[in-house]
């Protein structure tokens, strides 16, 4: 898994890439929770994620729950097909805010 954090107006964009599995999902979880701990609205770009297992999905769920409880904006951006299949399997595509781009996130 690779990641890039970039500051955007009013939000932080966390871009994850590659495979997210048991070996690195704790790192993804820490990155997500740390941004929310700092009080930032968070957009997680998943366009370059080629594989995500349920530990990765669980990290996203935990992040979204935290954002909701702290009234911070949160969305998944440009979700890759591979990721979307897993979200749909768990019917989480109907739960997470999904946006196509940062423009949409900020709209």
């Amino acid at each position, binding site marked *: 898994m690779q990641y890039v954090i970039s500051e955007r107006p009013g939000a932080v964009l966390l871009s994850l890439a590659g495979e997210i599995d048991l070996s690195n999902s704790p790192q993804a979880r820490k990155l997500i929770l740390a941004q929310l701990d700092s009080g930032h609205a968070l957009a997680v770009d998943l366009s370059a994620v080629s594989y995500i*297992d*349920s530990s990765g999905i*669980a990290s996203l769920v935990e992040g979204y729950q935290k954002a909701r409880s702290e009234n911070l904006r949160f969305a998944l951006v440009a979700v890759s097909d591979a990721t979307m*299949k897993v979200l*749909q*399997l768990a019917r989480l595509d109907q739960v997470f805010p999904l946006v196509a781009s940062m423009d949409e996130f900020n709209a």
Partner: protein
Amino acid sequence: MNTDREPVIRVRDLVTHYGERQILKGVSLDVYSGEIMVIMGGSGSGKSTFLRFLLGLHVPTSGSIELLGQDITQLDSQEMYALRKKMGVSFQGGALFNSMTVGENVQLPLREHTDLDDATIEIMSRLKLELVNLGGFDKLMPAQLSGGMVKRAALARAIAMDPRLLFFDEPSAGLDPVVSAELDELILKLRDALNMTIVVVTHELDSAFKIADRITVLDQGDILLVGTVEEVRNSDNSRVQDLLNRRPRDETIDPDAYMARLTNA
């Protein structure tokens, strides 16, 4: 099915015995990544035995069994332990621990094999229960579940670690037709979303024809046929047709072998 790929399960000339009696008589089989392979056969065909050897529960008389590129007949116990983390198994009886809640049962492999945070483990286990339509049942004890629910909970535990290989022993046995059909749908979805390779042992024809990419028909310890659903349906092999049409077998008896079994001589 793209057969250019390397098989993730590769069995060669597998011969097994229970005591003196030969059960598998030289079985060879390839299963490819993301494939759903159904092992079919009547009672005594050797299909459950085959599954137990694929899982490394017994040592074969001869032959090799490669899973994810490793020959399990050659692995030491530590290597086998590491490989097992990539395998999920759902047995016929469910085999849940009765003293633990449903949720704790599903969490067990994650607590045993990973250092994931508690919050992650709890969400993962609830996600798996959602997948098998047991969302919200995590606090119940296994004794409070129906037979179909136990089966689904066992499946949730089998996929707790997102295994690359999933083995299923008689998923539909004892289930009503609706629950059985839901389980078939779930098997297909797991393969599509998580690209699991799935081996299902069953004697339920409807289920086999619905989920299989290919079917292996075992009969008396030999492979009669490996083929697509269409190929199995259209097979002119009389034993395959007997199985499809539920005709009793009319086998010839080997008097010497029969006497030897009866008298242990």
